[in-house]
């Protein structure tokens, strides 16, 4: 009996001490902070998962070197969903129920995100989305624990059109596939053009994975645009540029700008010479200019990644996506450290009160009504053919 009283007293005292020093009991009980991460790490979109893994691993290594999260060592657990929504949900369930993760980073495909987010809400798990661009995924009411560090589809579309208008282009042609993503982009771009009393020179469409892109190129050329905005997947976009090369309709005869996928080195490799002079977009922090090498901390991280993945090992990597996932893990650290809690509602509140966090990719701020970390104002036009340590050359038009 005496022994029981002593143990109970000790437990109560320890709770009291923890409360006094400001750490919740749940944090003190944990020795390790677990980040679960699911993404496509095999199949045609494996490079997405590779970017996720590298970004999270670099961040976790740095966090642990600097003392972890509130003294807890951080460990990331990765799973491959093969871009299959059913598999993604099964894996997330396993991570939450068996591994008992504290936060989740991923996934890498919008369809997988749609499949898992209701479950994450039900289980109250903080989710940091670093690369899934579907606009519907971020909704503070529907998905209160989901935050995003990557630019979404809609904002990319808005940026492309606004940038073209700002640079004095009058005849804007758009090319995209007939998937839900492509048709959504068409609507977003139409809205921006309408708001400037403009209409597109043409909206050229094709089916994803089409081989013969010559008719699409021909349609674009016959519309006589002064800029073509490409919302095309990697291989499709490369085939389109090759078809336009055959029609002798490439920069400088016409300006061409693509969305984030066209910044990938693998896209440039596939398109070859036809990608010369084709602009892309990137968040400002992952760019440099002839007079500005970029932020020193960001350049240092870029060099570190380049050293770890030299040559062919790094050719399917996209620096700003890696930065985005790196920032996801760092934001988890910030949220837990600020809230001093492992409770999703507390971490959520801490992230929502974050009005300026300087990440590798951008400066982030969230609020209770806005869980998007990036907006079009943080993007710039780049020439992705001119890489330095994986960073893109800013185009000064």
């Amino acid at each position, binding site marked *: 009996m005496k022994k029981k009283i002593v143990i109970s007293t000790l437990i109560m005292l320890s709770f009291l001490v923890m409360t006094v020093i400001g750490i919740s009991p749940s944090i003190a009980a944990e020795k390790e902070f677990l980040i679960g991460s699911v993404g496509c790490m*095999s*199949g*045609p*979109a*494996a*490079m997405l998962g590779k970017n996720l893994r590298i970004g999270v691993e670099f961040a976790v290594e740095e966090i642990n070197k600097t003392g972890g999260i509130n003294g807890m060592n951080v460990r990331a657990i990765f799973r491959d969903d093969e871009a299959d929504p059913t598999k993604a949900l099964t894996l997330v369930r396993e991570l939450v129920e068996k591994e008992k993760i504290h936060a989740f980073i991923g996934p890498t495909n919008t369809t997988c995100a749609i499949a898992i987010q209701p479950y994450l809400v039900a289980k109250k798990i903080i989710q940091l989305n670093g690369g899934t661009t579907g606009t519907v995924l971020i909704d503070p009411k529907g998905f209160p624990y989901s935050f995003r560090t990557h630019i979404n589809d809609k904002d990319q579309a808005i940026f492309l059109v606004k940038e073209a208008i700002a640079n004095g282009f009058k005849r804007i042609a758009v090319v995209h*596939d*007939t998937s839900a993503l492509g048709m959504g982009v068409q609507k977003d771009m139409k809205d921006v053009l309408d708001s400037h009393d403009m209409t597109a020179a043409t909206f*050229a*469409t*094709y*089916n994803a*994975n*089409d*081989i*013969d892109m*010559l*008719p*699409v190129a*021909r*349609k674009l050329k016959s519309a006589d645009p002064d800029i073509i905005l490409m919302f095309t997947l*990697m*291989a499709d976009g*490369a*085939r389109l540029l090759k078809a336009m*090369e*055959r*029609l*002798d309709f490439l920069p400088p005869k016409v300006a061409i700008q693509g969305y984030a996928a066209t910044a990938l080195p*693998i896209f440039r*490799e*596939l398109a*070859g*010479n036809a990608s010369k002079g084709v602009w892309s977009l990137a968040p400002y922090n992952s760019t440099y200019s002839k007079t500005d090498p970029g932020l020193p901390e960001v350049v240092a991280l870029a060099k570190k990644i380049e050293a770890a993945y030299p040559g062919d090992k790094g050719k*399917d990597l996209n620096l700003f996506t890696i930065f985005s996932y790196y920032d996801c893990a760092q934001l988890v650290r910030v949220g837990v450290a600020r809230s001093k809690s492992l409770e999703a509602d507390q971490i959520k509140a801490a992230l929502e009160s974050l009005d300026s966090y300087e990440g590798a990719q951008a400066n982030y701020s969230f609020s209770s009504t806005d869980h998007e970390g990036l907006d079009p104002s943080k993007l710039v036009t780049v020439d992705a053919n001119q890489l330095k340590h994986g960073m893109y050359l800013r185009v000064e038009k």
Partner: protein
Amino acid sequence: MPELLISGLVMGSIYALLALAINIIYSTTGIINFAHGELVMLGGMFGLVLVVNIGLPLVVGIVVAGGIVAVFAILLYYSTIKPFGDNLGGSLGWLMATLGAGIIFRNVAMLIWGSHPRPFPPLGGSELINIFGVNILQHEIWVLVITLLIAIFFNVVLDKTILGSAIKATASNRNTTRLMGISAEKMVLACFGMSGAVAAVAGFLISPITFAGPEMTVSIGLKGFGAAIIGGLGSSRGAFVGGLILGILEALSMTVVTPGYKDAIVFLVMILTITIKPEGIFNVTYEKKV
């Protein structure tokens, strides 16, 4: 417009190449090899290793890759067709087996070579040449010429040689063929070997256009089957013409209507063709000929 016609002819030649090899298997076994697209992919991937990575001359690369893929095709026969015996019409096991083998080939290729597509050097280099105001790659001319030569080769082999007669006899009735002293098994193996070699050549020709990767034939594989059906299963002339019809039809539908509806239009026409003329344009009935 001329460039669209050329583009349609090139795509049509690609479909024809697929259809030709599908036909040669159909000629002896009466089945369609649903893993054929993946054999073409293997041709492209081995081509990438032999020509780009190792640096073999293109012709040597094609011959070596042709041999390797022919062996794969023969192994495919032993593992997915032979277990179902002679009466393949009475079982659908081969259908699932060939489909499954295709998926295995694709997944293993992903494990070995990774998933993303890679550029493949075109025959004759990347420089565009201008013919009558149309920019084309030399490679596209090679695609047309080689496809035509393969179609003629198969036509001659099937119609003018003893091997062709033996193949047709095997297609007609295996038991009777055995009584005539012809090894049906050897005929089938010869056809699988030939289809594998043609698949490798197709891989070399297709890869510069689609890019080489484990998924390079996913979208065109089905059209290869379509071309074979439109032309008439078992006819090399039919495969060639069926492929070209499909390619030109695609190019036209992308221009006249909208590229987004291209596949719907092409498959609608294919269904109509099959409905009106189920035996295809060049119907072949070996039973009557042998």
